């Protein structure tokens, strides 16, 4: 008689594998938020908060939805649809409205969201919100952004649920994704480089989150840091994101000053590569940054070879 495909012994082994798999999944995917004692005492700098809010491009995703006709387009009341490969997301309200915005958020809540990717209720946040970059920021800078957001007019606009499949399983699965691909190390200055270069490096790699689109992703959708800033397929679907390396050598920009002009003027001065694939919004934000910061970003970016 032929051997049955599964002996009882095999089934027991299989059950053990599945059970231990679930346990590993359960442990690896559990969120690990910070507690209040982890947050330093900080005196807010609103000007710095506003600069980093702009550098972070918060408004580009948290723009008011089409139903908020009375809300100014530069108030991050949320609700505008964001189409991604996993479904349509509705980025939430960042204004200080206590019920539907961040009005009741503590500093700990804000740091956990921005730097750990964990919501106040303890859920993993979807990394379309680039906490993967914000995690590298100085904690004081993140608190300054919170302080700046508190100065904005409160808007009542409850967050619409995201339109994605298997949302709750995916949320938990994100823990696994974070386990393999979430680099939480703080940004470190390079003492061999100028202060301005370092400022640029910080803005690009921290708040600016340029990496999220300009670095290709692995099959696990984590940033492929062996190809940092080399560009690749657009994360939202169509088109190709350009490489940020050797921009001058490749003839894309004449020199650092030319890139500064491109950041500040975009296509108004004929810089045709500053519009598509979301870069138009980024350029709009860059044009609102202080001159010194735009120059710092250009110095850093043109140094990438």
């Amino acid at each position, binding site marked *: 008689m032929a051997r049955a495909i599964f002996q009882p012994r095999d089934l027991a082994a299989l059950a053990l594998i599945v059970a231990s798999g679930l346990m590993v999944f359960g442990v690896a995917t559990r969120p690990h938020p910070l507690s209040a004692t982890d947050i330093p005492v900080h005196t807010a700098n609103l000007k710095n908060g506003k600069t980093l809010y702009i550098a972070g491009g918060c408004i580009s995703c948290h723009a008011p939805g089409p139903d908020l006709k009375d809300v100014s387009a530069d108030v991050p009341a949320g609700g505008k649809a964001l189409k991604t490969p996993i479904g349509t997301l509705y980025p939430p309200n960042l204004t200080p409205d206590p019920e539907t915005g961040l009005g009741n958020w503590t500093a700990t809540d804000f740091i956990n969201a921005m730097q750990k990717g964990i919501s106040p209720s303890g859920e993993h946040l979807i990394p379309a919100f680039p906490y993967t970059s914000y995690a590298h920021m100085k904690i004081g800078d993140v608190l300054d952004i919170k302080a700046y957001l508190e100065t904005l007019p409160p808007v009542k606009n409850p967050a619409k649920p995201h339109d994605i499949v298997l949302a709750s399983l995916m949320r938990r699965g994100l823990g696994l994704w974070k386990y393999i691909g979430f680099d939480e190390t703080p940004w470190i200055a390079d003492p061999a480089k100028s202060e301005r270069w370092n400022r640029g490096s910080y803005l690009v790699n921290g708040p600016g989150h340029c990496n999220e689109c300009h670095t290709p992703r692995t099959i696990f959708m984590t940033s492929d840091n062996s190809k940092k800033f080399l*560009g690749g397929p*657009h994360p939202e679907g*169509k*088109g*190709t*994101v*350009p*490489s940020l390396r050797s921009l001058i050598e490749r003839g894309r920009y004449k020199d650092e000053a030319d890139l500064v*002009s491109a950041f500040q*003027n*975009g*296509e*108004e*001065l*004929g810089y*045709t*590569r*500053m*519009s*598509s*694939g*979301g*870069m*138009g*919004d980024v350029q709009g934000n860059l044009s609102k940054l202080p001159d010194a910061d735009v120059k710092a970003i250009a110095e850093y970016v043109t140094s990438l070879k």
Partner: protein
Amino acid sequence: MSKVFIGMAGALMALTLGAGLAMAGGDDSITARKACMKANGAGMGVMVPMIKGEKPYDAAAVKTALETMGKACSAWDTFWPDDSMTSTTQKTHASDAIWKDKAGFAAAGMAYYTAEQALSKTTDEAGFKAAFPALGAACGGCHKAFRTAME
């Protein structure tokens, strides 16, 4: 005999014409609109250095640039048939938003046309410099919403 010949020749002509018409579909539209964009790029290459002060203002050169751009793009309304959204033979950065939001795309095209007309009416450097950013912004407005990211 001659009737048969005429009939055959007619059939052949009809076939050739049919094939020609079929070829004038999506792919030719992509070729035509790329030529238009290329001409626009070349025209910008003439005007932008004047805006940046790298070259002196040259009214005649501006006029020629705008005319060349206008000519290359004169058939604009025929550049976007439904079968030109994608192509197996050519690369296109046209976003599917063009066909999903036809009204928005038409408005973006009109913004460009208006800005181009305004710029072509300028006769001195001050007027040129004042009118140019609107044209650039119209290019950008359309590229932002209706062109996909390109390397």
